C-alpha cells in the first residue's frame, strides 16, 4: 500500500506493507537513519520521534498509522545550520557517550521544553523515564536539559 507521511515538513511517499513499522519507514528514507531501535518490546526509547509535537515510540506505530500526521525526527532539530538549544545543551554538559539513545532523548526533551520551558530535575527525570541510556547514568542528560532551558529563557529575554 502507498503510505505518505510528512516527515520534517516534507511529504515522503512510499509503497510499503501494512506491517511496516514507522521506525523502519523513517530509517529507509534517505538521510534519516538518526532514529534508532534497541529492543523488541517498546521499552528502550531509542526510536522516539515526535508525532504532532508529542513523543511517540516509532517502533510501536505502523507507518500507515502516521499518515496524515506530522512526524519530526532528530534531523529536524538543526535549522539553517544552527543547532537547537537542546542539542547544544547535550554537547555543553556531556549528555551523551555512544550517542545511540541520543536522538530519542533529544526529541523527548525537546517536546518537554516545548510544553514546560522551566522543568525541575524531577520533571526532567520523569519525562525521560521512557528511554534507557546505558552510558551516561542520566545525570548529565538532566544537566543538559537544564542548560537548554536556561539558554532558551535567556534568548527569549534578549529577543
Amino acid at each position, binding site marked *: 500500500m502507498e503510505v505518505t507521511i510528512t516527515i520534517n515538513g516534507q511529504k515522503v511517499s512510499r509503497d510499503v506493507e501494512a506491517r511496516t513499522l514507522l521506525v523502519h519507514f523513517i530509517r529507509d528514507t534517505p538521510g534519516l*537513519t538518526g532514529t534508532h531501535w*534497541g*529492543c523488541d518490546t517498546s*521499552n*528502550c526509547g531509542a526510536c522516539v520521534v515526535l508525532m504532532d509535537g508529542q513523543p511517540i515510540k516509532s517502533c510501536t506505530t505502523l507507518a500507515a498509522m502516521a499518515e496524515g500526521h506530522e512526524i519530526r525526527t532528530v534531523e529536524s532539530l*538543526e535549522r539553517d545550520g544552527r543547532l537547537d538549544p537542546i542539542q547544544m545543551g547535550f554537547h555543553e554538559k556531556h549528555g*551523551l557517550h555512544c550517542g545511540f539513545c541520543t536522538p530519542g532523548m533529544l526529541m523527548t526533551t525537546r517536546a518537554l521544553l516545548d510544553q514546560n520551558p522551566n522543568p525541575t530535575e524531577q520533571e526532567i527525570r520523569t519525562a525521560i523515564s521512557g528511554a534507557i541510556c546505558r*552510558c551516561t547514568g*542520566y545525570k548529565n542528560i538532566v544537566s543538559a536539559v537544564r542548560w537548554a532551558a536556561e539558554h532558551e529563557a535567556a534568548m527569549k529575554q534578549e529577543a
Partner: protein
Amino acid sequence: MATMDTATTERPIGFGRLKRKEDARFIRGQGTYLDDIRLPGMVHGVMLRSPYAHARIVSIDTSKALAHPGVAAVVTAKDLETLGLAWMPTISYDTQAVLAGDKVRFQGQEVAFVIAVDEYTARDALALIDVEYEPLPAVVNARKALDSDAPLIRDDKDGLLDNLASPLWEAGDSEATDRAFAEADTIVTRDIIYPRCHPAPLETCGMIADFNPNTGQLDIYNGNQAPNAHRTVYAHVAGLAEHMIRIRCNDIGGGFGNKVPVYPGYVCAIAGSIVAGVPVKWIEDRSENLMSTGFARDYVMHAEMCSKNGKITGLRVDVIADHGAFDSTAQPTKFPAGFFHIVCGSYDLEAAHVQVKAVYTNKAPGGVAYRCSFRITEAVYLVERMVDALALEMKVDPIDLRMNSFIAPEQFPYETTTGWTYDSGNYAATMREAMRIAGYDELRKEQAQKRARGELMGIGTSFFTEGVGAGPRKHMDILGLAMNDGADLRVHPSGKAMVSISAQTQGQGHETTFAQIVAEELGIPPEDVQVRHGDTDRTPYGLGTYGSRSTPVSGAAVAVVSRKVRDRARLIAATMLETRAEDLAWEKGRWYVKGDPEKGAMIEEIAAYAYSGEPMPEGLEGGLDAQVIYDPPNLTYPCGAYICVVDVDPDTAAVKVRRFIAVDDCGVRINPMIVEGQIHGGLAEGVGIALMEVITFDDEGNCLNGSFMDYLIPTSLECPDFELGETVTPCPHHPLGAKGVGESPNVGSPPAIVNAVIDALHATHGVDHIDMPCTPARVWAAMQGRAEPPQ
C-alpha cells in the same frame, strides 16, 4: 590558528574539561551505526534459534523456507561443515558451534541462518523451517553440573566425561591461609552469588560482511571492541588471508564487553557473503542479544574471612563459575579465572587462598563482560561483602574495620598474597574523602533517628582496588596475541596531526581524550589532532578496548609516540636554530634555546621544515612521524571509596537508592568531564545489577529474562544524582601517571548498595546477607528470614 595563548579552561591545549569533538555527528543523528549502513545488493540474514535448552536435533527441513519468495539461502550446520565452519574456536581455547548440528545446548542457540532480500522476509521464513528436536534433560544449576547423574553437555569433546569446563585454578597460599584462620579471633562464612546479568548495550550486535570474489577482499562492518584481534581470528577460522580482511567499526552504540566475542551470526554472515558474493547483513534483535550473546558474572562463591586484633587477616574463597554451554570467556590466556584472585582486596592480609572451578551448563556461553575488568567485579563484590559480614560479627563500624586493615601508603608498591603488585594508593585518604562528601557521621545520626520511628535507612560502603590495563606481553596474551597496543602519529606539513590508535571506542570519548594527550605532549591544539580508529587497514595492531585498558595502554602509547615526535622535533629544531639539541628546552608547543628564549621553533614550524627540502639532521629521515607499540610494565591499580544511602519501605520492601557518593582515584585525569561521565554510567549499571538486572532460568532451561520487559535496566527515576569526588595518586609507571577508570564504578557499586540494604535491615530484621538483585520480593523474603539465592 589556536596557540598556547588562546588556551583556556574551556578549551585546554592538553588535559582538562574539553567538550567532546565527536558530539557533532551524534547530536545531529548522523552517527554511522551498523544498521545505518546500506550497501548495494545487500541481503539480510536472520538466525533460527533453539527453543530448547538441551535437545538432540533429529532433522531440519528447510525446503519450505527456501521456497518462500525473497529467500536466497538457508544455511545449516551441514552447509558450514563443507566450509569447515560448523564449529569455531573460542577465546578460551574451547570450541563453539556456529550452527547446531548434533545437539542444541542452550535455549536460543543458533540452528539455521536464513538469507533473504530484507529482514521482514527473512523473519517470515524462520517460521517455515521445520526442526525436529528430541528434548534432553537440562543442566541449569551450576552447583549440580558436576553431579554424577548430571547430563553430559559437551559430548562433542573427546575424552570429556563430565561438565567441567576448565580445570581447578588456584592462587594464594592455602597453608598460610589455614594458619591465619587458626590464629584468628573472628571468622565469618558466607555463600555469596554474583548472579548472571547482561551488558545489554543499547545497540545490539551485528555485522555486514562483504566479500568481493573478484579481488578476494573481505570487507567487514562490525561493532566490536577488538577489531584487529577479530581480523586475526577470522583469518584463522575461515582460512582467509589476513591482509585481505578489513574490519571497520564506525560508530558503536555501547559495548560494555558484549562486543568482544566472535558470535555465530558473524561467521554466518561472512560465510554467506563468500558463497553468495553479495554483502550480507546480520543484526540481532534484543531477545537474541539477551539470550545468546556474552552474559556476565554467574559466580557461585563460598567464602570465609577472618580477623585478629581488629584487623582483617585472612580470606578463603571457593568458586563455581557457570560458563554456559561453551567456554567463550575472554581473558588473558594465563588467567582462566581472569583477575578474580585480586579478591585479596585493598587489605594488608596475612594470607589468602582462592580456587575457581568452571562448569558447563545448558545456558548461553560467556561470563566475562559488563565492565568486569576480567572478573574483578566478582572479586570486589565478594571481598567487600565479606568485610561487612565480618564487621557485623565483630560489632564494629564497617568503615573502621576497613581503615584498620587497609594497605598503608608507605607499603606501595605492594605485593599481595595472591601475586599482584599494586602500584600506588592512599586508601585512607580516599575513604575519608568519601566520608566527608557523604557526611558520614550525620548519616549515622539520621539513621538512628529514623530507626526509632520505624523507618529503614541503610548506609553501605565499598572500597575497591582493581588492576586494569592488560598488559605486559610476558604475562598477558589473548589467543597468543600479546596485549600490547600501538599508536601512529603523523604531524603534517601544516602542523596538524593524525594519531591512529588500536583502542576502539564505544562511547568512551577517544576522539577527544587521545587528541588531548597529543596536545599535552606536543602543544598542538586538540581540534588540530585527528584521532583515527576503528579501521584495521588504517590503524596499528592492538587488542582493543575492554578491561579499562584504553588509557593505561593506548593512552600510554599515544604519550610515548608523541614524545618520540617531540624528540625528533628537538633534533630538527636544533638544525633549524643552528644549535645543539642539548641546548634546547621545551615549553608546550615549542623548543627554544635555553638562555635565549626568544629564539625557538614552534612545532608547526618544525613540521613544515621537516617536509621541506631543507637539510635534516644527520641520520634523520624527513617528515615528523613516529610509531610505537606499547608494552605496559604492569597493570595500573585505580581504587575508590563508595558510600550508598538507601531507604527501604518497611511494608513493601521496595528499595530506593537515595544517594550515591563515589570517590575514585584513577591517577591523573586527562579529561575530568569524560572520567566523571564514565563513573556516572558505571554507577547506574551498579544500581541495575544490585536491584533489578538478572538472567534466570526455569528447571528446563527456559530463559526468563529474554526481553527488556523482564531484563530491567534502570531508568532516570531509579538513578540518584550521583555525587563524585576524587583523590589523585599518580601511577608511577604510566607515562602520564594515569590509571584506567571505565569499569571501576561497576566494580565498586553493587557491594555498596547491597551492604546498604543489609545495613537497613540488620538491626530490625536480623538480615545478615541477601543476594542480588534486591527486588522488592527478594528483600521482603529476607526480612521474613527467608533470603534465598536467585535461581
